């Protein structure tokens, strides 16, 4: 009997087994989300306090199997066998099982059992079992499996204390051993491979057997573990060949063997008192996935989600905006004019503001996502949308993240976590920013308002409205084209065939939703926030340095003279206006002189074919911080103090300098370009490297340039240049 200290435990279980609820109940708010190194698989860890000390809890991705066919399964296997870098090998495993679906859930348990790690079986959803009048013989189950069995109703917190007590004794447990049987021929084939792993790796005996079995029966596993050693490959092919000649079905041997054993156990431990009862969920599904009503309900729900991110979030966002504006005002008053003031007001406060402003949208989206996921509706939505999305090389689950991206790509990209398949997830992330988000709105508003006539078309439409619609459609069409393109050349291979479990409907838990909102928003603030803050400061510096040494007019002196006259002036309003004008002119000169201003002039020849001059160039550079900054930057360039999208002064200036064709070209550029460092920061976090955000920035920039070029040059050819 070992008495080693318990440091780390892992939680494993099927999707929809209530695994996350158990994890939440054990760790509370002591959770961290991140990624396993180099892959887009979410790594969730937390801390649990036991009388004996603190234990690290690793929540593995939801799995049906450990036999690696996807990155999720591979990561889970690596964590459990201590091979995953940066994750301590767990001292024990809690396998969370949906008791109302014992047979299928025990399948995964048998795979974990093979690894010979101390294990607890957490039998969740005991309330459902009771409702369906199913009797589970817990003692017999525990005796047969050779592990402690703890009944749970995790959502109500029932059994959690007992589970904790069981976990405390995990390190004294004699690990379970494999009990199910393979076909004898497959068994002996497996033995020889097990020996190879025992000799060539330092894995534990159980893990060696599992690996041997998986490479024998599954090509993906062979690719993963045997791909590099031709000797091992050869041996596997020989063994398969010999099994085939003996007419042994080696492909299904593992699964058949496990299910045969599991079915026997279920027969002995389960008693259906009234036979199998029809589920209430089947009745609900007659409406919710009805060919006509289903999609309508889905669209209605998404409209609600979309509306809430789009408009309900605007109230708290205004408050946040107002707060940071107020704070800047105070600093303005306290600190003397100069570099330090600029750094703090425009760099730090502006940067923090750029981060915090997204919180309301993220919180709201994750609230809805938690409800959709928790209730069991999400797989149904994916089921209904799968056919449409598949035409573009995407899968059904991509629909919610993509629709959310119309509000804001940041929560949208975070929402791709619901897509288990890593390639599909990456593809969805790459095209999400092409959905026109709310930050593009101010740019659309000012250019459409300035250049596009509000003429009525077909009675109910206006040219302006249709132009706006056109911008949204441009983004959607581009996204579809890019998805098809990427699927062909980048994220190759077809999306895996849809096989999706439709879990029973359940009342979603508010607590789970709140925990998800807390954990996700904290992760956003910490990880993406630091990147966004840094970039904001860099952009501030670009727009500030080098400073002007000699203004064309001595603004500082003139402003001071006028300000001194102000208290005694006969016409203070006029004087104040004059001061404002001088300040605006000074700001314009500052900007023109800065790196950003010079950069604008440097890139002028490049953007000229798009119909832009250096001023729009500066606006585009500044808009990299956040798209809506374009408008205020143009205001600065045109010496109009604080300009927003409603500013008539700014519109007047724009009308003088640019043609309608240029305006459309600018808007198309904004539809297609990835001018949002917050998005790039989030993609960096979600994909775990700078490779994908840089690729995204690159491809979208090229797309934007080509799009704007085609519009402007094409328009000129057609004679719309005026």
């Amino acid at each position, binding site marked *: 009997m070992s008495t080693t200290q318990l440091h780390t435990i892992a939680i494993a279980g099927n999707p929809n087994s209530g695994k996350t609820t158990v994890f939440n109940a054990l760790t509370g708010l002591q959770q961290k989300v991140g990624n396993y190194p180099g892959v887009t698989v979410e790594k969730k860890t937390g801390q649990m306090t036991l009388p004996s000390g603190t234990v690290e809890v690793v929540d593995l991705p939801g799995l*049906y199997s450990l036999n690696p066919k996807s990155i999720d399964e591979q990561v889970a296997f690596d964590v459990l066998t201590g091979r995953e870098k940066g994750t301590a090998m767990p001292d024990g495993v809690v396998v969370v099982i949906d008791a109302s679906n014992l047979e299928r859930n025990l399948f995964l348990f048998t795979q974990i059992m093979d690894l010979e790690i101390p294990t607890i079986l957490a039998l969740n959803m005991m309330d459902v079992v009771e409702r369906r009048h199913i009797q589970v013989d817990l003692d017999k189950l525990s005796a047969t499996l050779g592990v402690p069995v703890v009944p749970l109703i995790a959502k109500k917190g029932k059994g959690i204390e007992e589970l904790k007590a069981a976990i405390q004794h995990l390190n004294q447990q004699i690990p379970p051993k494999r009990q199910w049987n393979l076909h004898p021929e497959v068994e002996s084939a497996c033995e020889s491979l097990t020996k190879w792993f025992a000799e060539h790796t330092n894995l534990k005996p159980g893990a060696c057997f599992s690996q041997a079995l998986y490479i024998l029966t599954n090509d993906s596993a062979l690719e993963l573990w045997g791909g590099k050693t031709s000797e091992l490959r050869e041996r596997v092919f020989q063994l398969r060949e010999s099994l085939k000649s003996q007419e042994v079905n080696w492909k299904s041997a593992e699964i058949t063997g496990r299910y045969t054993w599991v079915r026997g156990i279920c027969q002995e431990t389960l008693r259906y008192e009234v036979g199998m009862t029809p589920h209430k969920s*089947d009745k609900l599904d007659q409406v919710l996935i009805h060919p006509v009503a289903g999609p309508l309900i889905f669209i209605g729900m998404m409209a609600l989600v979309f509306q809430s991110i789009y408009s309900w979030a605007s109230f708290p966002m205004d408050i946040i905006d107002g707060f940071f504006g107020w704070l800047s005002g105070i600093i303005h008053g306290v600190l003397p004019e100069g570099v330090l003031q600029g750094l703090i007001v425009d760099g730090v406060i502006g940067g923090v503001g750029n981060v915090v402003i997204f919180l309301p949208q993220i919180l709201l989206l994750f609230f809805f996502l938690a409800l959709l996921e928790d209730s069991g509706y999400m797989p149904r939505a994916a089921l209904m949308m799968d056919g449409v999305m598949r035409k573009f090389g995407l899968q059904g689950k991509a629909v919610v993240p993509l629709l959310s991206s119309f509000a804001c790509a940041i929560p949208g990209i975070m929402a791709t976590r619901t897509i288990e398949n890593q390639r599909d997830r990456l593809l969805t992330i790459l095209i999400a920013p092409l959905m026109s988000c709310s930050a593009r709105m101010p740019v659309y508003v000012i250019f459409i308002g300035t250049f596009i006539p509000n003429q009525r078309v077909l009675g109910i439409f206006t040219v302006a409205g249709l132009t706006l619609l056109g911008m949204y459609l441009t983004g959607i069409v581009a996204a579809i084209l890019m998805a098809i393109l990427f699927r062909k050349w980048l994220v190759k291979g077809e999306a895996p065939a849809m096989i999706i479990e439709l879990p029973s409907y359940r009342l979603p838990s508010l607590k789970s939703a709140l925990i998800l909102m807390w954990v996700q928003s904290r992760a956003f603030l910490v990880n993406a926030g630091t990147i966004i803050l840094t970039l904001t400061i860099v952009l501030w510096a670009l727009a500030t340095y080098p400073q002007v040494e000699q203004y064309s007019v001595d603004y500082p002196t003139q402003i001071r003279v006028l300000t001194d006259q102000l208290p005694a002036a006969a016409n203070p309003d006029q004087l104040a206006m004059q001061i404002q004008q001088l300040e605006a002119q000074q700001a314009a000169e500052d900007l023109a002189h800065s790196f950003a201003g010079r950069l604008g002039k440097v890139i002028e020849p490049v953007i000229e074919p798009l119909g832009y001059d250096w001023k729009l160039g500066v606006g585009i550079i500044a808009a990299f911080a956040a798209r809506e900054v374009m408008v205020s930057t143009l205001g600065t360039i045109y010496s109009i103090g604080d300009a927003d999208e409603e500013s008539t002064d700014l519109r007047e200036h724009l009308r003088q300098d640019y043609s309608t064709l240029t305006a459309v070209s600018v808007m198309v550029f904004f539809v297609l370009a990835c001018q949002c460092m917050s998005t790039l920061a989030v993609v960096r976090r979600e994909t775990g490297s700078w490779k994908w955000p840089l690729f995204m920035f690159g491809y979208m920039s090229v797309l934007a340039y080509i799009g704007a070029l085609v519009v402007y040059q094409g328009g000129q050819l057609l004679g719309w240049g005026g």
Partner: protein
Amino acid sequence: MIQTMPLSTGTTGQHLRIGAIQSENANDMLRLQELGFLEGTEVQILKSSDPMVLRVGETRLGIQRDLASQISAYRLK
């Protein structure tokens, strides 16, 4: 002699028994089997449109019609 048919030709409400699975994609086949889709298992068709919805034991599964057409099934007597 048992009459087999592709699972995809089943109608809503029908109870069938699974015969051979001949998916050209080995991973799809493994994934189905791991979910309890084994030869000889009884399934019920809850929805015969595309995607199909099937009951296997206590599990409800949505699967693409394409995939269902690669699975043979026969009527329960």
